[in-house]
């Protein structure tokens, strides 16, 4: 009688009796950690973290030096770039690869050549007159740099060119020239 509310030996933790596995909650820790309350706490935390994650971009945009200053760079002699060919150069700095294309119709088109998907270099595809990123088959319109197909979502930054005395110069760069 007096033992009524005491666990019998085989039900105690550490008992060798198999029955203990049926009455002890072996996943007690998980049950406490992965419950509804903890889930909501984690979700609220994630929401705040996602919101805060936009700050570094804004801060960098505010303090960063993104001024595309007037910056004239000679690229190539026009006579050395026949129609339907292209040449790579760097603009505005040595770390920004770019591509100058002399189209079959005789126009000059220049873009930064880092694909707007994951920065692979894009190439001039002569037959179809498009810019092709081989990494994930991204296609860009040659005439305006807009993405045509594949993963890229943004246009290639446009580089404005000028021809003076038979030499092609890069003079300015424009993002989002849609």
């Amino acid at each position, binding site marked *: 009688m007096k033992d009524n509310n005491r666990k019998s030996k085989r039900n105690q933790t550490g008992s060798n009796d198999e029955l203990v596995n049926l009455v002890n909650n072996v996943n007690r820790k998980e049950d406490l950690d992965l419950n509804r309350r903890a889930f909501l706490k984690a979700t609220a935390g994630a929401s705040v973290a996602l919101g805060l994650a*936009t*700050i570094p*971009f804004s801060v960098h945009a505010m303090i960063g030096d993104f001024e595309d200053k007037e910056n004239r760079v000679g690229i190539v002699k026009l006579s050395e770039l026949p129609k339907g060919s292209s040449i790579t150069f760097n603009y505005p700095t040595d770390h920004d690869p770019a591509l100058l294309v002399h189209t079959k119709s005789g126009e000059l088109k220049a873009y930064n050549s880092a694909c707007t998907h994951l920065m692979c270099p894009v190439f001039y595809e002569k037959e179809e007159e498009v810019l092709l990123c081989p990494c994930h088959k991204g296609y860009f319109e040659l005439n305006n740099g807009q993405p045509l197909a594949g993963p890229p979502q943004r246009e290639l930054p446009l580089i404005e060119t000028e021809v003076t005395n038979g030499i092609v110069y890069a003079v300015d760069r424009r993002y989002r020239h849609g």
Partner: protein
Amino acid sequence: MGKKICWAIIFLTVALNVVMLQWAIESYLGHEFEKLYQFSIVALLSSFIALIAFLKWRRLEYSQ
């Protein structure tokens, strides 16, 4: 404001913040800083709302 509503608000802010972060990165890469600041502000506001909703939920949940 019941607990259910707090849950709903928190989930909505998660969805909103995911979108805002994506757009903020897009506009950062596209050098559209005006838009970037706007998205950032929206994201911070919704984080704040999430925090308020969470505190509210906590008060309801842990009061008898």
